């Protein structure tokens, strides 16, 4: 695979907090234009991996390149150039609580392009708000006035503000009702298709994995033990992966998926 088709390349990553080693010798490639699901038991360091890639956690060892640039020891002004090209949705939305939803969405654009026309900025914020499925009156509301699901959507609208090439989603469907979660999956997929996004998706939601992920990376024993499509992973015969995808919830997700496909075929 050609180098410029790999958006994120992680080699020999080591992360530790005091005595506790979270990652050791972790390797991972994320290809351009794919939705990569990242799964793993609680405490296997999925969020820490994401934080390392986006530069919030300085790794003890290892090399991380994003868009071909080494992000570990980047100068601040170089880091800004890369940050313009990605968007991040944190677990709780992480909206700025003193700003309205519209101001939250406009902030990244204002920050990176200070001379941008304010009228156009408002228009951009408004179509991003609609695009992420927020109600039309959500713009002037403060994050505290929104429900958990709406906060996630507003967080996504902010992550998408700069039209990034790379999108990090940390458990976007956790805490959403099944209908909301399915709509969120649909939205991610449609945005990925329209804008050619690469998506790094941390999730526990088996339905999301089946519905939208091109490949899935499994984190266990401090490293990525396998990457591939779900069928490839199941064929590996690893006990944890087996348990994960073939447990009762895994089977239910497959059934849902197959029912959905059957219906699509019948139409």
């Amino acid at each position, binding site marked *: 695979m050609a180098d410029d088709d790999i958006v994120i390349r992680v080699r020999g990553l080591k992360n530790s907090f005091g005595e506790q080693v979270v990652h050791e010798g972790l390797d991972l490639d994320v290809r351009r234009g794919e939705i990569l699901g990242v799964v793993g038991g609680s405490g296997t360091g999925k969020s820490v991996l994401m934080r390392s890639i986006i530069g919030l956690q300085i790794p003890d060892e290892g090399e991380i390149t994003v868009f071909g640039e080494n992000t570990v020891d980047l100068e601040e002004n170089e880091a800004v150039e890369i940050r*313009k090209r990605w968007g991040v949705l944190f677990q709780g939305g992480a909206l700025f*609580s*003193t700003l*309205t939803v*519209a101001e939250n969405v406009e902030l990244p*654009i204002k920050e990176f*392009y200070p001379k941008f*026309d304010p009228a*156009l900025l*408002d*228009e*951009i*914020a*408004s*179509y*991003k*708000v*609609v*695009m992420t499925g927020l109600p*039309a*009156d959500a*713009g*002037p509301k403060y*994050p*505290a006035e929104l429900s958990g699901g709406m906060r996630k959507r507003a967080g996504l609208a902010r992550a*998408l503000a*700069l*039209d990034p090439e790379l999108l990090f989603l940390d458990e976007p469907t956790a805490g959403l009702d099944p209908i909301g979660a399915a709509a969120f999956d649909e939205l991610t997929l*449609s945005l990925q*298709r*329209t*804008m*050619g996004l690469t998506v790094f998706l941390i999730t526990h939601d088996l339905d999301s994995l089946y519905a939208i992920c091109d490949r899935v990376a499994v984190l266990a024993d401090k490293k990525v033990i396998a990457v591939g499509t779900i069928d490839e992973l199941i064929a590996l015969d690893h006990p944890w992966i087996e348990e994960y995808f073939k447990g009762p919830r895994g089977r239910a997700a497959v059934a849902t998926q197959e029912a959905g496909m059957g219906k699509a075929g019948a139409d």
Partner: protein
Amino acid sequence: MSVPAAFTDDSAGGTLRFTGSLSLANLGDLPERLATYDGKVDHIDLTGIDRLDTIGAWTIHRLAQRTGADIKGLNPDAQHLFDQVQAADQPVVIRAQHAPAFYRVLGEIGEATIQTFKTMVGLLGFLGATTLAFGAIFKSIFVPPRRFRFNATVQRFEVVGVSALWIIGLMSFLIGIVIAQQGAVQLRQFGAEVYTINLVGRLSMRELGVLMTAIMVAGRSGSSFAAQIGTMRLTEEIDAMRTIGVSPMEALVVPRVLAAVVMMPLLGFYAALISIMGGCLLCWVALGIPPVTYIQRIREVVPISDVWIGLIKAPVFGAIIAIAGCFQGMLVEADAEQVGLRTTAAVVQGIFLVIVLDAFFAVFFSSVGWI
């Protein structure tokens, strides 16, 4: 990919041809130029562009809408992007509507008044609830199971009292020095330097020892009560407590109020003593009064009623500070910003009420003859 976006017009044919990268980073002043472009536009040709993102698509979409032109030269991906952007073009409220400034100010004054009134009523209600909780705990001494939380209370004693000793000591020592120094400068004009000792002794015991301690406790402990309880409200710990049958008033508020009530007289008396010691040092160094004489004078000029006045006021101040802190903490809801606001309110309210009450106490004690 970093070719700036541009357009060339072919006015005769009414066609705008776009080139370059129609994306946020390369858009430049294209939106402004398009907005002021008043030539005839029948067709928009996008064959020549090399990149398109939603912001570029939006700009073109607006132009097409304004001029009624049709868009040519889209590849399937770009067409999909246009469909998405078009679907998202709906009337949306982005900013809240603001009333005129005059009405807004009037409204804010009214709201602040109502809010203050509500807070006062709420504080009174909270005082009642705290009293009831104390009553319930007191009753449980005779009717087991006992509900008094001994460990929690003792832990609060340490946080409110013992940990504050160092800072309150330092503060009081310095205040003692300042009073003595300022007093000595003024009294020297009448040749009455020796009365500096009266000034330091009486002021420390009667007013400043307790008052300064109350301010310090409000800053240290009142704020921390509000922040702790406020954070517990945010993380739903307090709701969890209620569901397992633990009363937050008994488990959180009573130990804190009790700790403040017990610790304030001790801290206040300690502060007064240290403040007198500060005065002693200054009198010795600046006025040449030896410590033995100083202490003897203190025993002669400071009546025991001054000590009682300090000791009577202190627990009341402690209760007020702790109740204001816990009350503000309990009012936190919704978001983290509130924790900060409520913590500030707890300290301001605590100190304000302490000073108001101190004035009442001063009038009261002089009327009963403790001058």
